[in-house]
């Protein structure tokens, strides 16, 4: 005898696991602090690479002038301003990714709460059958 209610519940849970649940389950496997830390770390790395690319383009843009002025300019001041820009970029992008990842984690957890509740219900259905 097929238990229709159980089959319906299992089908829907399987469908959830295939689609949006895949991403949510991955996120749900982390603690909140760990997930956000990893994402912010990745963002900082991406921001660093992006800043390096922009800096390289900036140098290339005015390469001849830069080469001529390199001996005359205040290198330490230039380096300090570059580091300040880098710091600002990393802080802004890191904060933005912190906010987005916190929101994503909260949304994933809320969705997974329903999923786990239905998982318990399914378990209860199996236990009552026994």
């Amino acid at each position: 005898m097929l238990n229709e209610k159980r089959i319906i519940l299992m089908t829907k849970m399987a469908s959830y696991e295939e689609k949006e649940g895949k991403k949510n389950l991955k996120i749900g496997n982390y603690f909140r602090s760990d997930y956000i830390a990893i994402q912010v770390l990745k963002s900082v790395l991406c921001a660093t690479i992006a800043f390096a690319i922009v800096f390289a383009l900036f140098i290339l843009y005015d390469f001849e002038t830069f080469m001529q002025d390199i001996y005359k300019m205040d290198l330490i001041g230039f380096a300090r301003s570059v580091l300040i820009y880098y710091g600002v970029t990393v802080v802004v992008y890191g904060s933005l990714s912190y906010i987005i990842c916190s929101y994503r984690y909260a949304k994933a957890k809320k969705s997974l709460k329903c999923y786990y509740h239905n998982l318990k219900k399914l378990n209860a259905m199996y236990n009552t059958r026994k």
Partner: protein
Amino acid sequence: MTGLLELREKIKLIYSKNEVFILPIAKFLLAFIVFNTINGQMGYMTRLDNIAIVLIVSLMCSFLPMGCMLLLSALFSLLHMYALSMEVALVGLCVYLLMFLLFFRFSPKDSLVVVLTPLLFLFKLPYVIPVAMGLIGTPVSAVSVGCGVIVYYLLMTVVNSASTIGTMGAEEAVAKIRLIIDGILDNRAMLVTVTAFAITVIVVYLIRRMAVDYSWTIAMVAGAMIDLVILLIGDLLYDTNISVLNAVLGSIVAVLVAKVIEFFRFCVDYSRTEKTQFEDDEYYYYVKAVPKMTVAAPTKTVKKINTQRRPAAPAGRSTGGTGTRSTTRSVVTEHTSVARGDDSYGRQKGQGAYSHRNEYANGGRSVTINSSMTEDSIEDYEDL
């Protein structure tokens, strides 16, 4: 209206039955158009400007994920830029990398938008994208739309500067880089368009999520108007030479396309809205329920009944060679079932009954299982 609803259910049924074929064919066609357009607009690398290569790559894109189509089209454009000038390709690569590292981390599933936006710009229908993405996407889709606009203006800068770059020699590498970077950074039209589209996506999203009647219609009209207003303001401030007539016509087309999207995605009947209030131990609930517009999709089953007739004459008599005659009758039975638009997990709240229908090939019989969901079981399927 009923005819349109039935047509919608038929289209959904055809799509759900043949999704395995329809999706790859659609991806193949889109990839074919994209790569042909890139070759047509740029075409500096003659080896790539070959129908065989376009067909092979489009075929690959048909069974690979959407992200691969985006990657391959970026590669195509970079190869054409490389054929024009290595410096141009370097700047193009840097722009793509920047977009991927900074922006695309947060909306990777909107890669279709980044491919479609430049294409619709070339077909003079760019204003459809922000309204459509506001209706079916999230606010983060504004990032993908912005990336699509930047890609379009980068490619147009390269195309417009191609003749100038072609005359420059190898010793003017820095000048070439400067030309392309200036073409992107000083491009006021791009800045205004990105701002207008991003704000439109967010506004459309916010309005359509409101719990007011006809929120989707209000959202699409408001979005189109805000888009137009920002583009006109940008034209006044920065003299971007945007064609007002094109913008107005494009916005009207955008609203029409959005109406079609609404019909398929969010067709509700506000005249039958129900409101109720109830409380439990923790909260007091104010509930507004708006029923979806559904129609029973008539389906036909053909029952073939084979009847065998015994010969009229008794045994021993000659029957003239007629023997046994068998006839087949067919009976057409019409079954109606409530067609459901969305079978995803947890979205069947409040639906009282649904049916599974299994057709067996044995002798044309069809078996219908009807089951009804009780109030208790409805609570089990919370909205995910």
